[in-house]
């Protein structure tokens, strides 16, 4: 990157299952206003607006065009980027490119989803090839169920372990005023919840949320002049997997796959030896409990097959040595087009010390890693730090 780029502000909506009180324009605008207020900036100061969501999830083609009044893009340069579940992070990447190019000083990144306005399950089945697999596509839940059976068979993990992840997420969410599912649940509650697709139960899956997230990125001079606590974007890496070959995830595979390839590239860029020590907090995109444990392994926070042991030993609890998803994560809030951006924003809040009720206090947070997850096994990884020296 030719220039250093910092997050100088951000904001999010109070995510919820029902937001009948606002239309899509108004929902997006809540996050944009929050981000501008946080950055102490007006929309007039923004040079470009980068926008994204899951195309057509709200029954609208070209949402960027309709939502210009809410996003603030009217009269400005801007783009609509769509890369599935990773889009929120892809937009941030686009913001980084815009600022680093030297053509723009301040870029506003906006991601949103108003899932209640469309049929997400049916549309997600449309991810499958129209002539190969679409008629029996199991949407996201079927994919994660097969990953889970593979994980259990390979490493000997039990349903109890996924239940622990389910509880951790929702108990953390109770500390997060913006989270959607703030559930005071026990492991037994998780194990008793309705079976959706063996071994995935209701509480193993993310909810369908309505919400938006916005972030303002700026060049170094603007960041230092205008922001008391800039958070620096130190490195990003994207890897998309091919179309067909990971429709079922064998957790024992030795093949180079998206998550591991991307993590190793990012670690090389930053000179990371042990990510569990290098980063102080993680915000991981885990649409299902089992995916969180697989992410631990793919990110090399532990050895392959040991992911469930991290959970078992409370290592990734909010007060553990490797805090993962103090915000409650995607399991507690999934407004898809915003979810990957929320991971980055939550990681930035932790570094700023501004996460409020879910701030990690057991250690000093200087560096954070955020992941995105979507498409057919795609990811975008983002490494953040509080100073350029870290």
């Amino acid at each position, binding site marked *: 990157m030719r220039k250093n780029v910092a997050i100088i502000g951000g904001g999010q909506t109070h995510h919820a299952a029902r937001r009948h009180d606002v239309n899509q324009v108004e929902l997006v605008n809540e996050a944009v206003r929050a981000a501008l207020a946080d950055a102490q900036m007006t929309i007039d100061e923004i040079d470009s607006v980068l926008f994204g969501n899951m195309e057509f999830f709200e029954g609208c083609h070209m949402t960027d065009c309709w939502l210009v009044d809410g996003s603030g893009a009217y009269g400005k340069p801007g783009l609509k980027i769509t890369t599935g579940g990773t889009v929120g992070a892809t937009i941030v990447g686009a913001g980084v490119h815009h600022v680093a190019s030297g053509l723009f000083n301040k870029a506003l990144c906006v991601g949103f989803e108003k899932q209640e306005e469309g049929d997400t*399950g049916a549309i997600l089945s449309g991810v499958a090839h129209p*002539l190969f697999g679409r*008629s*029996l596509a*199991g949407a996201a839940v*079927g994919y994660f169920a097969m990953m*889970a059976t593979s994980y259990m068979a390979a490493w000997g993990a039990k349903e109890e372990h996924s239940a622990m992840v389910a509880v951790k997420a929702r108990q953390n969410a109770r500390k997060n005023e913006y989270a959607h599912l703030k559930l005071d649940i026990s492991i037994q509650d998780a194990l008793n919840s309705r079976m959706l697709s*063996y071994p995935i139960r209701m509480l193993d899956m993310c909810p369908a949320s309505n919400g938006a997230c916005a972030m303002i990125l700026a060049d170094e001079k603007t960041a230092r002049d205008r922001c008391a606590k800039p958070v620096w974007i130190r490195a990003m890496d994207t890897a998309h997997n091919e179309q067909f070959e990971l429709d*079922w995830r064998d957790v024992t595979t030795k093949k180079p796959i998206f998550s591991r390839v991307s993590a190793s590239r990012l670690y090389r860029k930053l000179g990371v030896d042990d990510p569990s020590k290098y980063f102080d907090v993680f915000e991981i995109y885990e649409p299902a409990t089992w995916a969180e444990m697989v992410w631990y392994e793919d990110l090399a926070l532990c050895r392959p097959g040991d992911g469930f042991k991290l959970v078992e030993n409370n290592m990734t609890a909010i007060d553990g040595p490797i805090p993962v998803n103090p915000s409650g994560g995607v399991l507690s809030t999934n407004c898809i087009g915003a979810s990957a951006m929320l991971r980055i924003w939550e990681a930035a809040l932790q570094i700023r010390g501004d996460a409020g009720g879910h701030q990690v206090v057991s250690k000093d947070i200087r560096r954070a890693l955020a992941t995105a997850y979507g498409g057919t096994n795609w990811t975008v990884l983002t490494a953040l730090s509080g100073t350029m020296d870290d």
Partner: protein
Amino acid sequence: MKSAKDNVELISIPMVVDVPYRFAAGKYMTRFLTELRDNGKFYGIRCPLCNRVQLPPRIVCAVCHVKNSDWIELGNEGTLVGFTIMYLPLTDPTTGKPHEPPFAYGSVRLDGSDSVIDHFLNVEPVVEHIRIGMRMKVALKEREDRVGDLGDILHFDPVT
């Protein structure tokens, strides 16, 4: 206590968006589906560089960035590599109707293929009856009922 705000009527507008499509299968899927329909055979395609046999057949090997070339006949038996029992009445977008739950479905690696194919498993939807590593055999519709799409496969039967 109810505030005045709670009494404001909220209007929502119901709408069904119905977009018709007619998808071209393309050169590779056409040959695959034609063989399946007419001869009940599965064909994969092999990459000239890495030699992996890919199913469904496609134009480019994504790993090697080269055009795939050799058509390989696969067995109609294979090994179960992953499964789930689905309790959700998922909509079949090709018919608009739900599949009746619970049902088992899984990923099978057909003999001779490096890829897997997902489909229904004709086994009792009970975890104890399904095992990763089970041998499975394809059950096709009768020739006269096959139309040239993946629905020509009924399910996989366990090999006994």
